[in-house]
């Protein structure tokens, strides 16, 4: 009965959580406080930076908000299904190219990409619709290819997604009539993705990803992640549940890609490959892949760290040390360290909620009092 004792002792330490009200076992208010807190934080930082009005910092924020959107879509599938989806960044690429093709003036397209199919040149939508059409294109591609891959789990699942990423990359980098092939694809228009656009989309996506996690489909997907067999015998269709998660994730990836192309204004297939996947993966791992808060704080932390490290790198290079690439190495090591010692990231897989903040504060002040007391005793 040693296992029994072990479990018992574990539980004694655990705080008992009671339902907030007698009528409902779910505290929806506490659950949704996550979304309110995270979006308020994002908007507060964004508004402050906009008020500062320093273009360099504004650019960093805008691109981070795009990255956040990308990480959130990545979290939606990987966090809830437990499967590393390598091909995700490919959907961002599809969304980036597709939305650009939709939004560019036909005249500009003829000039920039003379090889493009005539029917693509004729397409023209306002930016907001082009962005959504780009995301839908990514989702449609996912819907077409994903079904047979969905029953594969673990390393087989990851390997097939990796192979798919290779396919996407080759197609994007070779299909001259669509993506301008290996040459740079220049949008040649306005920078539609402003600070507020990026912030707005990121906020909406954050709420949507959180809603997904708590929805019946999200719950089912999490159940398949934790125990495939128990999920199946509880009435959960593994393949269709994963499929819905996967194509939703591809949609958000496509959206993020569209924001990116209308921000950076010139793209190549290489912008949506292993390096960028590595960056968003490190954000999700360090933040904690199982929670939306993890995606948020991972993006925030890694963005700050990368900016800091980049400055150090530049400084070192200027003073004669060859330090280019050091940022990536530090990030990679950080990711490994997290995977070994804190596999659920800084958030531990939990969401930031009112209650969690209150608990944290309470235990913090409690500890302070306690240490003050013990110090007195020592004196």
């Amino acid at each position, binding site marked *: 009965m040693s296992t029994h004792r072990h479990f018992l002792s574990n539980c004694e330490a655990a705080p008992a959580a009671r339902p907030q009200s007698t009528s409902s076992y779910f505290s929806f208010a506490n659950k949704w406080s996550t979304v309110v807190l995270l979006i308020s934080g994002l908007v507060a930082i964004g508004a402050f930076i906009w008020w500062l009005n320093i273009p360099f910092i504004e650019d960093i924020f805008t691109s981070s908000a795009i990255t956040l959107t990308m990480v959130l879509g990545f979290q939606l599938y990987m966090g809830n299904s437990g499967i590393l989806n390598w091909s995700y960044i490919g959907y961002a690429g599809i969304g980036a190219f597709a939305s650009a093709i939709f939004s560019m003036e036909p005249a500009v397209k003829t000039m920039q990409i003379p090889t493009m199919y005539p029917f693509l040149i004729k397409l023209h939508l306002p930016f907001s619709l082009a962005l959504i059409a780009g995301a839908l294109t990514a989702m449609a591609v996912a819907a077409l290819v994903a079904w047979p891959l969905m029953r594969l789990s673990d390393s087989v699942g990851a390997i097939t997604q990796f192979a798919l990423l290779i396919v996407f990359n080759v197609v994007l980098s070779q299909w001259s009539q669509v993506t301008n092939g290996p040459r740079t694809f220049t949008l040649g228009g306005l920078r539609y993705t402003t600070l507020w656009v990026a912030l707005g989309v990121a906020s909406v996506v954050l709420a949507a990803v959180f809603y997904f996690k708590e929805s019946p489909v999200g719950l089912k997907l999490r159940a398949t992640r*934790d125990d495939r067999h128990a999920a199946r015998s509880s009435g959960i269709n593994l393949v269709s549940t994963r499929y819905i998660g996967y194509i939703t994730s591809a949609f958000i990836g496509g959206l993020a890609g569209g924001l990116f192309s209308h921000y950076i204004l010139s793209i190549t297939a290489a912008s949506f490959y292993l390096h960028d996947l590595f960056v968003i993966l490190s954000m999700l791992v360090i933040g904690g892949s199982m929670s939306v808060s993890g995606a948020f704080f991972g993006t925030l932390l890694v963005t700050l760290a990368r900016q800091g490290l980049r400055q150090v790198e530049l400084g070192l290079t200027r003073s004669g040390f060859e330090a280019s690439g050091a940022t990536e190495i530090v990030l990679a090591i950080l990711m490994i360290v997290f995977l070994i010692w804190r596999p659920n990231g800084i958030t531990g897989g939990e969401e930031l909620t009112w209650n969690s903040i209150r608990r944290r504060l309470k235990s913090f002040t409690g500890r302070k009092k306690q240490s003050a007391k013990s110090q007195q005793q020592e004196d």
Partner: protein
Amino acid sequence: MNKKSFFNVEGLNKSFAGLKAVNDVSMHIETGEILGLIGPNGSGKTTAINIMTGMIKRDSGKITIDEHNIGDMPAYLVPVYGLVRTYQTIRLFKSMTCLENAMMGAIGVGIGRRAASEIAGELLEEVGLGESIGLPAERLTFRDQRLLEIARALAASPKFLLLDEPAAGLNEEETDMLLSLLKTLPGSRNIGILIVDHDMRLIMNLCNRLQVLNYGRTIAEGLPKDVQKNPEVVNAYLGSTAS
């Protein structure tokens, strides 16, 4: 009066690489009764449950609930027709909360999230896990994990519940608790229960009927007091465990 349902298994067969794990087993349960399925280790009890719930494919045999042919359905549709199970080695959604775990039973059969949370919450109170609603399943005691698995199964509002060694790893006191919980279910929820366990005290106190497997074959069935005296059963199984 509650409508009766019937769970019928006819001539079930399953071989693993030549080994006949389940050999021409038939079984009949109706709602409101508890059938005990006993037999020595490796006699095919778990395999029979796996087949009946569609988790593994059978070689032959017929499995029905009322007029529905369960045997030809994918495993994830079986709960919808009223058949759910628990596992010998507990299988929970360990990072999800107790409430979410229990909710999955209801959501899995198509009940909406709000209704599912109500059903799950009430069930958790009923099995005595009301205090642990917000805890991740992995933080529960062994006994509570067993109870949570049962609550999850019940959340599907099943007609038939298949329990694979629910008392394994529980001490005597905990087994008594389980006994009193299980005893009420057929009456209060109008369900039929198939229970597999090696704890003969639990089995004898709980079951209306017993069926005994040995090497995948049914060697006896009937009332507990008769089965207990059956020389073949004593020889194959009870001899070593029963007093």
